[in-house]
């Protein structure tokens, strides 16, 4: 598949609208295909990205997403960083609890996204914004 995406560099996408969330999904799908993730893993990482990008939009008040094709020497993968300078998350453990939501959602975005990927790192503090890094390795 010709992607039109330069894999040697991180691809950035701003997140300021619902359409941007769709763009993030498409970008992630393209890179996931390029690094040869299986269909199941593609779907998992695209879905995780959809959750986190929507959180960036809804709770973070918008932000940026960066998608990078990576390689740890043994296998290729995809790393995605979601960053916003919104209110941050005061109680991270609570936010990561299944079913917890402050926005009338299902409360499964953060916790579910963590289960869908291999590496999940979150840096957040009240007033400091939120920065989440996820990686999915090809197997």
């Amino acid at each position, binding site marked *: 598949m010709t992607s039109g995406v330069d894999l040697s560099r991180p691809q950035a996408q701003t997140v300021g609208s619902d359409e941007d969330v769709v763009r993030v999904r498409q970008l992630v799908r393209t890179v996931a295909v390029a690094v040869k993730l299986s269909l*199941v893993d593609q779907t998992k990482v695209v879905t995780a990205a959809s959750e986190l990008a929507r959180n960036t939009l809804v709770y973070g008040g918008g932000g940026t997403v960066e998608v990078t094709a990576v390689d740890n020497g043994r296998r290729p993968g995809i790393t995605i960083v979601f960053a916003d300078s919104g209110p941050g998350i005061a109680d991270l453990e609570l936010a990561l609890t299944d079913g917890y939501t402050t926005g009338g959602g*299902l409360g499964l975005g953060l916790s579910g996204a963590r289960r869908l990927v291999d590496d999940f790192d979150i840096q957040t503090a009240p007033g400091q914004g939120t920065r989440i890094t996820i990686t999915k390795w090809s197997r």
Partner: protein
Amino acid sequence: MALSTDESGRLADLLTSRVDRVIQRWTEVVGEQLRGRLSQAELLRQVQELHRALVDALGKGAVDLAAEEATELRAVLAELSRGQARQGFSATETATGVFALKDALLSAMEDDQSTRTLRDYVAFAAMVDQMGLFTFESYVHTREGLIADQAEQLLELSTPVVKLWEGVVAVPLVGTLDSARAQVVMERLLQTLVDTGSPYAIIDITGVPAVDTQVAQHILKTVVAARLMGADCIISGIRPQIAQTIVALGIEFGDIATKASLADALRHVLRLTGVESGRRQSRREA
């Protein structure tokens, strides 16, 4: 940059005293650009109308396009761009229709050798620039409206609710199920349930590339609303990768029936109705 009152008066004079020259050169330049895509008569009509509106505005004392006295001129410009946008002219072609006035002014001023001429030309040209940019904006505005209309039509097109069988309606979802579309789907489905009096609805998600919690929540809400109206929903078209993702996310569809394919879902419903009519029959027999 506004014209001075003097400049505005001189521009009006120039446009009226050299009206033939101006109109001739103006239509010539635009005609070259559009190369027959607009009839000569239509082109002349547009140019004359613009010319009249401009002279009119200047005559009333307009010193720039934003002026109160230029209301009519703005309306004429907007109407012109709207028409061109709808007829598929490009933004450049549309704006050129206005910018060509510069050529026409230059040719009308050629005979005049006074030193004032250059300064006047620059001032007049600035006014034409304003008009051109305004045209451009109106054009873009119209195009955006057209695109929004098309998107809405697509929205309607892409969410057909079909009657699959007596008492069974189905809605095949294709593509991205954003909130706007989810809303349309839900309303359509519920309306069709009412119109057909169907007790069963099948929501097929074969064409949805990713089911995240937002999509799931929309589906769950639709199912609950259908239930309140006495109808049962079945979700079909759950491909293996979607099933695994839904499980990992932790989404629970509870007691909602889910099937791998639309055919499976229909079979399931027919079996249910078969059992029911069977039951009813046996009751009658008893």
